[in-house]
């Protein structure tokens, strides 16, 4: 039964992602919802956002799971995904200011609290015991989804990066849910994995045919955070996201305020004549993961994306070790 349910959900959300993304590429092109791909010669115009395709596909996968389980956590995950996706859609249509997004994304955390889809007794690696955090934990839940959603949003810098990053970072969560024997959360994570993996990555890999937009990245990031909280894999989730979290941390600590990347005057990287990327030498430029990767010399877009993927893979391996240190 569980295996069949998992297969049905993988197929439905995967195929829907494929079909809806194809459909969306045509619609967005026709309506002129296009943005420049700044890292390529001639700056081609690429449709954006793919978020609605991802959100609908994952939601339908989760709805099937909810129909068979009536698990309140699945409802909380779906609500978090939908709320973050809608905030992202507003941001795609009308740019929100830097600090609005984190504030609005607190609403995405609310379903987890209101539906009671969390256990305020996280289990920590090495320590091995659950710790009662009845007061602090709900506050951490409120902060968690804005953090995961924004960090995933901030890593969306090059073709194929965010989709491959989410795909790789989801694997440790699957390991954690398996170690806990939580098959509902295991299946609940599958729509995220299948949608972002083969089916969306096919369109998003270099050269991208469509960009996820803020609706896509915020929805994926919020769902990721919700999965880690509802599935009691908080520390595993944090470790798997470390490259993205460090990217945001470096950015915020060097800029010293919450601003959108596009609002920053000095760019962290510059594009050379041969369209390779080089780290900005300016002291005013923010520190980002990309700038740190480029610190030792220019690279092509594909090479920077590959470097981020390697770091994501190492973080995923550390997260899997963390899972084994926990259960």
């Amino acid at each position, binding site marked *: 039964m569980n295996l069949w349910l998992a297969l049905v959900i993988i197929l439905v959300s995967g195929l829907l992602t494929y079909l809806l993304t194809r459909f969306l590429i045509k619609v967005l092109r026709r309506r002129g919802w296009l943005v420049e791909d700044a890292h390529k010669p001639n700056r081609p115009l690429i449709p954006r956002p793919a978020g609605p395709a991802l959100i609908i596909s994952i939601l339908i996968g989760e709805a099937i799971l909810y129909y068979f389980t009536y698990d309140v956590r699945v409802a909380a995950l779906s609500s978090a995904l939908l709320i973050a996706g809608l905030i992202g859609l507003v941001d795609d249509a009308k740019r929100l200011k830097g600090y609005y997004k984190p504030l609005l994304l607190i609403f995405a955390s609310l379903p987890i609290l209101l539906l009671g889809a969390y256990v305020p007794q996280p289990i*920590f690696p090495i320590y091995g015991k659950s710790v009662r955090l009845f007061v602090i934990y709900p506050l951490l839940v409120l902060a968690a989804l804005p953090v995961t959603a924004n960090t995933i949003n901030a890593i969306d810098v090059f073709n194929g990066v965010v989709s491959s990053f989410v795909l790789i970072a989801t694997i440790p969560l699957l390991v954690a849910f398996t170690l806990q024997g939580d098959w509902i959360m295991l299946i609940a994570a599958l729509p995220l994995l299948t949608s972002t993996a083969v089916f969306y990555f096919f369109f998003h890999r270099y050269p991208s045919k469509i960009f996820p937009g803020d609706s896509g990245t915020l929805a994926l990031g919020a769902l990721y955070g919700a999965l880690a909280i509802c599935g009691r894999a908080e520390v595993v989730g944090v470790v798997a996201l470390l490259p993205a979290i460090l990217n945001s941390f470096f950015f915020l600590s060097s800029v010293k305020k919450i601003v959108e990347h596009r609002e920053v005057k000095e760019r962290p990287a510059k594009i050379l004549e041969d369209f390779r990327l080089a780290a900005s030498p300016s002291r005013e430029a923010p520190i980002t993961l990309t700038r740190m990767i480029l610190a030792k010399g220019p690279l092509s877009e594909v090479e920077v994306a590959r470097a981020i993927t390697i770091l994501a893979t190492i973080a995923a391996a550390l997260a899997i070790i963390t899972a084994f240190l926990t259960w």
Partner: protein
Amino acid sequence: MLRRLLPLVAILLVAWLLVLSGTVIIFGYIAQFNPAEGAISPFGAAVLKVVLGALLAILWILILYLLSIWYVRRSIKPTS
């Protein structure tokens, strides 16, 4: 490529160790700390836990910040 990424992998490893040690120390020991009766008031104990937790978090942030600054300044020659 791997050679270029080695310093970043080292930063990632430091961050991982800080996450592991930080969460275990803050939530496993500081948050669970119960002083002997009469040694300190419950309010004083709560304040002490918050201060210790915050100090550890600040130390965590400071280590990563200094690492990132050190790496960028060492690798990129500034123009201004």
